[in-house]
């Protein structure tokens, strides 16, 4: 140590200035607070190895052909891969053991999806968008339904019938609007759930729903009052075969063709009370927070975990493009010398390598922010962390009826809705937005660079670089467009302490 010593007061003073450590170095905070970081490391390296094996054995042999099959026939669904993922246990990999899953830490999910996306972003979405549905269900903290549906997913794995969960929130007239409570009341909402005896009657439609046609459960967000949707939000679990629910058309997309984007149509669809994940009328009771604030917390919790996932997809695309361009440049001769030995090409490849690694560092920061402040926070609490790691699954199965007790849902909602600190919301949501638009922009930059470096060969489907560009473009759009995410970052991490700031 040098000559200068800080007094405790001084240290506190300087650390209270922006940027605060707790705002910007989430990994440091996590490693300080999270028990057993060695165990976490082992889970992450297992997840990566597992994804690589899956890529070798399942994804690589088929992904280009699937892309062509869908181009040729938009009705094509890649059931083979869906069944394989189910067989490999991917549908329960990140579901906590207490709900019958394998309990791999959620932080490991991000490098896992990057691996699959580095070969095929479309198939990464097929495998992982299930966790978007699952995360939304979890954000309702309805423990009874979380337990029931998760165990059905587990049964699906045992019986060989994949039971996937989709999330349906986007409507034809409202995309950006449904992602933000400040906008939704000005939006053109159409999907209305009317409270009727014994449940809800839903009318309307949802569009662009990833994995819609191949999922069994659909976590549906609808509203009882279309003029005040922010305060009248209802989350329902809709199952295939429920009366009044059907699939509509499948979108014809530019990329990520393996992952169907479906229209979901509801015509007097009756959803019984037992499948109500969350309704606004429950939230207004005994509440220290308004319904709208709680709904925003739910949205923040969902999109913060999934936006970091989209960022990981993007890093996968950026990496796939980089690796394809690198392999190409070793073989290609330009003006008499290997492309890889042109200094400008080395510089471009270095730039691409940097983008991949900066992107990964960013999405991991967001993953750590989620572990400390988001949906996974509960799992990071010591007793729960250890229980989920050490207690055998059969034990959880035995005690699982406990989740049916209303008090359990009440307790978890108390902690995760009403006692949820604003500061946590800002960090997790701000970071998720930062990584979402940051990494997805890098995804486009790298895929463009690959094409520049490979010329027309980069545009050939059989060589493989062009698909990364088509796939990567979607990442700038879904989970909130990058425009919405920029404003969300601004709101949460920049403008939060400035009373004059108004967004939207």
């Amino acid at each position: 140590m040098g000559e200068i010593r800080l007094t405790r007061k001084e240290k506190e003073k300087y650390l209270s200035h922006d940027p605060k450590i707790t705002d910007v170095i989430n990994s440091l905070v996590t490693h300080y607070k999270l028990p057993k970081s060695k165990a976490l490391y082992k889970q992450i390296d297992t997840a990566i190895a597992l994804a690589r094996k899956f890529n070798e054995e399942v994804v690589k042999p088929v992904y280009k052909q699937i892309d062509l099959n869908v181009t040729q026939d938009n009705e094509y669904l890649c059931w083979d891969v869906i069944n394989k993922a189910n067989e490999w246990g991917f549908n329960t990999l990140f579901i906590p053991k207490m709900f019958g899953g394998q309990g791999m830490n959620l932080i490991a999910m991000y490098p896992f999806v990057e691996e699959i996306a580095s070969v095929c972003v479309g198939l990464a979405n097929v495998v992982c968008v299930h966790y978007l549905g699952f995360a939304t269900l979890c954000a309702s903290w309805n423990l009874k339904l979380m337990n029931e549906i998760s165990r059905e997913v587990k049964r699906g794995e045992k019986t060989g019938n994949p039971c996937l969960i989709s999330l349906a929130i986007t409507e034809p007239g409202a995309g950006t609007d449904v992602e933000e409570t400040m906008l939704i009341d000005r939006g053109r909402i159409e999907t209305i759930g009317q409270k009727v005896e014994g449940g809800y009657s839903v009318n309307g439609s949802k569009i662009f729903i990833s994995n819609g046609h191949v999922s069994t459960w659909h976590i549906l967000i609808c509203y009882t009052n279309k003029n005040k949707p922010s305060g009248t939000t209802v989350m329902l679990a809709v199952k295939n075969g429920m009366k009044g629910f059907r699939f509509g058309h499948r979108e014809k997309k530019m990329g990520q063709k393996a992952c169907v984007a479906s229209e979901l149509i509801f015509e007097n669809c009756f959803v019984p009370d037992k499948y109500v994940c969350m309704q606004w009328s429950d939230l207004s009771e005994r509440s220290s927070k308004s319904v709208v604030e709680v709904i925003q917390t739910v949205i923040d919790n969902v999109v913060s975990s999934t936006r970091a996932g989209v960022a990981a997809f993007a890093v996968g695309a950026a990496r796939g493009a980089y690796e394809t361009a690198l392999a190409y440049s070793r073989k290609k001769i330009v003006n008499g010398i290997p492309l890889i030995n042109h200094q400008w090409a080395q510089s471009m490849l270095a730039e691409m390598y940097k983008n991949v690694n900066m992107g990964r560092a960013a999405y991991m920061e967001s993953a750590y922010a989620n572990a400390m402040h988001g949906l996974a926070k509960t799992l990071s609490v010591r007793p729960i962390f250890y229980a989920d790691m050490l207690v055998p699954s059969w034990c959880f199965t035995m005690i699982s009826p406990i989740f049916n007790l209303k008090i359990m849902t009440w307790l978890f909602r108390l902690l995760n809705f009403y006692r949820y600190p604003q500061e946590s919301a800002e960090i997790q949501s701000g970071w998720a937005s930062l990584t979402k638009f940051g990494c997805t922009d890098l995804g486009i930059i790298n895929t463009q660079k690959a094409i520049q470096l490979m010329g027309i060969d980069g545009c050939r489907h059989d060589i493989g670089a062009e698909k990364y560009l088509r796939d990567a473009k979607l990442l700038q759009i879904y989970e909130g467009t990058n425009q919405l995410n920029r404003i969300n970052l601004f709101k949460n991490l920049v403008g939060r302490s400035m009373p004059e700031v108004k967004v939207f």
Partner: protein
Amino acid sequence: MNIQATAQIFTEELQAISDMAKNFASKELVAKREENDHYPFGELFTETIKNASDVGFYGVNLPAEYGGTGMGYSALSSILENLSMADASMAGIIFTNAAAIEIINQASRDTDCSALYNMLSAKEALPIAFSSFTGIGEMEIPGASEKGEITGRINFLCLGGISRYAVLPARESTHGARISYYILDLDKHGIKKSEPVYSLGLHACPGVDVFLEKVPAILIGLSGKGIKYFQSMQSHLSLGAAALSLGILKGSFMEALQYTKDRFQGGRQIINWSEVRMILANMAIEIQAGQSCLAAACNELENGVTEWEKTACAIAIHVAEMACRATVDGVQLLGGNGYMKDYGQEKRMRDAHQAQCLLGMAPVRKMELIDLIIKESQ
């Protein structure tokens, strides 16, 4: 006739050509854009390819005495730009054919090419196949025997699957460093073609990989002058490449402008969110700048300004790069709809990225430009 009067006629002719291209686009391309883009999984628009011949789109840089219009590069640019606003595949076909013809035009300065021109004025001889997406330095070049028989492979020979003739380079067997251009009949014995190569964009302007085994071919111009012909063609066609990219960019902007007026989010037309406006503004700025640059470069060429080649090369690279960036934003402004085939935006984004590869890899062309500038400065 004074200069002003000549300029007036020229402007009127250009206007007429631009109108004709717009008319062609709206009649032949707009309604079937998605269907045509489905190739090779759907039908190729052969009727449209033929109709383009009937209106003279393949003869713009063909001398008038051989059935062309000989109108030059302002006219070609105007056609390519206007067609690309609707669907750039047709423009890709016209571009490829013009590149092949320009090789012959360059050769005709060295030797008498009338026999070749006569061959091309026969019915259905045009459009000609050409490797319009590959620079000569990055190409796998087949070999030519002393008898003028070609053996080897050409990757992504654009229009190779549909044209009667192809113009292609070959290395002289006597001296491997000497590259010459040849024209050959693609129906001849000894030629094998792949299925159409499925690529990122410009689906209705398809390429094939071609394998040649002792295929007789006719030398174009002087032996060993291939690189020179290629470079001159590259300079001329740079204007066309810039126009094609600019057209795509304009199409993307117009679609986005309309959509952002029609679409409501947050209780207002999305065009009234200033973040959306800023993206539109950036697109508009790139269009205005690109348009002025292209007009200036065409003028330089028509008026024989010595620097025109550098200007043409620079704007081709620049506009193509801008078009890639801006068409990505063009998709973005339509949100999820921009990603879907029902709108033209995703196609424009794909087309713009493939168009960036016209005449060779962009970084290689940048290096060539700076090499030229450095050489001249010494």
